[in-house]
């Protein structure tokens, strides 16, 4: 009985033309990535409110559902039924297009993220370059939103945010070059497999300064506290999305959190061995829990997301000139010097590069 059903389904599948099979197959896997991603975005917002709540000796959201678990769902439903106000002076097309411009790259970057050995949608060789390109696209959403709103607050927020994102992208790019030198590949799966062998083989040790630069730049790139002058409540109200409401605002929000998860995932892939178990070499590699697997990737990613929230709860907001000084006068010199040191070490075959 079951076999006939499967055979019937297979015959329908084969009846489709080849291009449609490729399209549907890919769509299936994309949905498998995207749905958990959206759910985690929703629950990162809940985790943020809850964690910051506990850090400030409050209990955070606790009314909707048991312990507030349904809070993100309630928020999403509420935002869906809210009017999108389009200001009279705004450029309507760009105003509504900006959130789309900002969420599309935040989602599409996940196409090349490896979740486990071989679990990657597009196993492309230029993965890191693709990610760098897409994270740069995010700034268009911000600047288009600020310009199209035709409000002074939005305009100033967008200008600040664009200059900040662009400055930190240089430091971030230099940090990525360091990772490339250590791994010799742009493919994220290969970067992880180069870190095989246990905790001491992870790239965090030879690339320690670059790890700090990358993570802090990641926080600045996503406009998170303590670098959130783009939406500083006390200065420019909400920055570039001050005139957005309802679902248009929610899409910006989703993009921001998807980017946070992306930066956390990339940090765990590039510096902490992604899906590799920290007990590698110590325990039997066939062990389900202590061996390599997607759960290690998720745990490391969750840890870095927690770091984002922790930073927000701990630090006061930077002043804008301090942000620019940190990006240009501290991070860029540090990374350039470290790249030189690393290049010499690679050629001299010393330290972790000795083959």
């Amino acid at each position, binding site marked *: 009985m079951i076999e006939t059903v499967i055979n019937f389904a297979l015959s329908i599948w084969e009846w489709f033309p080849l291009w449609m099979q*490729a*399209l549907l197959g*890919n*769509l299936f*896997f994309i949905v498998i990535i*995207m749905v958990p991603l959206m759910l985690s975005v929703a629950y990162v917002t809940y985790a943020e409110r809850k964690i910051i709540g506990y850090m400030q000796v409050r209990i955070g959201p606790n009314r909707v559902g048991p312990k507030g678990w349904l809070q993100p769902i309630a928020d999403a439903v509420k935002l*869906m*039924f*809210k*009017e*999108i106000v389009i*200001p*009279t*002076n705004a450029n309507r097309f760009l105003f*509504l297009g900006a959130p*789309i411009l900002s*969420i*599309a790259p*935040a989602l*599409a970057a996940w*196409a*090349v993220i490896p979740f486990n050995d071989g679990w990657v*949608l*597009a196993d*492309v*060789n230029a993965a*890191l370059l*693709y990610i760098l390109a897409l994270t740069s696209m995010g700034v268009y959403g911000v600047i288009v939103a600020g*310009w199209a*709103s*035709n409000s*002074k*607050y939005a*305009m100033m927020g967008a*200008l600040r945010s664009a*200059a900040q994102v*662009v400055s930190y992208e*240089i430091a971030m*790019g*230099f940090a*990525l*070059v360091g990772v*490339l030198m250590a791994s*010799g590949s*742009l493919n994220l799966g290969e970067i992880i497999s180069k870190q095989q062998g246990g905790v001491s083989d992870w790239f965090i040790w030879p690339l320690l300064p670059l790890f700090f630069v990358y993570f802090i730049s990641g926080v600045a790139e996503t406009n998170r506290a303590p670098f959130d002058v783009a939406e500083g409540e006390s200065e420019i109200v909400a920055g570039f999305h*001050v005139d957005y409401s*309802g*679902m*248009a605002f929610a899409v910006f929000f989703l993009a921001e959190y998807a980017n946070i998860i992306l930066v956390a995932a990339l940090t765990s892939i590039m510096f902490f061995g992604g899906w590799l178990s920290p007990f590698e070499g110590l325990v039997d590699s066939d062990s389900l829990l202590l061996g390599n697997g997607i759960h290690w990737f998720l745990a490391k990613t969750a840890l870095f997301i927690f770091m984002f929230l922790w930073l927000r709860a701990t630090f006061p907001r930077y002043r*804008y*000139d301090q942000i620019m*000084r940190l990006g*240009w*006068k501290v991070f860029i010199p540090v990374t*350039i010097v470290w*790249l*030189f040191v690393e*290049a010499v070490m*690679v*050629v001299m075959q010393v330290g972790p590069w000795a083959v």
Partner: protein
Amino acid sequence: MLENYLPVLIFICLGLIVGLAMIVMGGFILAPRRPDPQKNSPYECGFEAFEDARLKFDVRYYLVAILFIIFDLEIAFLFPWAIVLDEIGLFGIVAMGIFLGILVIGFIYEWKKGALEWE
């Protein structure tokens, strides 16, 4: 080789569609639309906006943008170099050293000129 990039293309398209679908669903199907002049005025802390918001802004933003282009190009050059560094060895280091050296001199000049100051 190139078919590896098909899922990437589909993913980008789906990302755009998801964004569009959310805006259309939230903004035009489920949500009410009751515009009025007060609601649709740009946010200005309750004041009437008395001039266009596309105002003049500080020239330093341009400066940052120009510097960014130079350094980002630099990164684009460094990417392939970093991958093959262990094959090209000392020659690679010297060549990139000269290239980076020129850039660093420019960077020091900017720094001394105060292009990076935001007082």
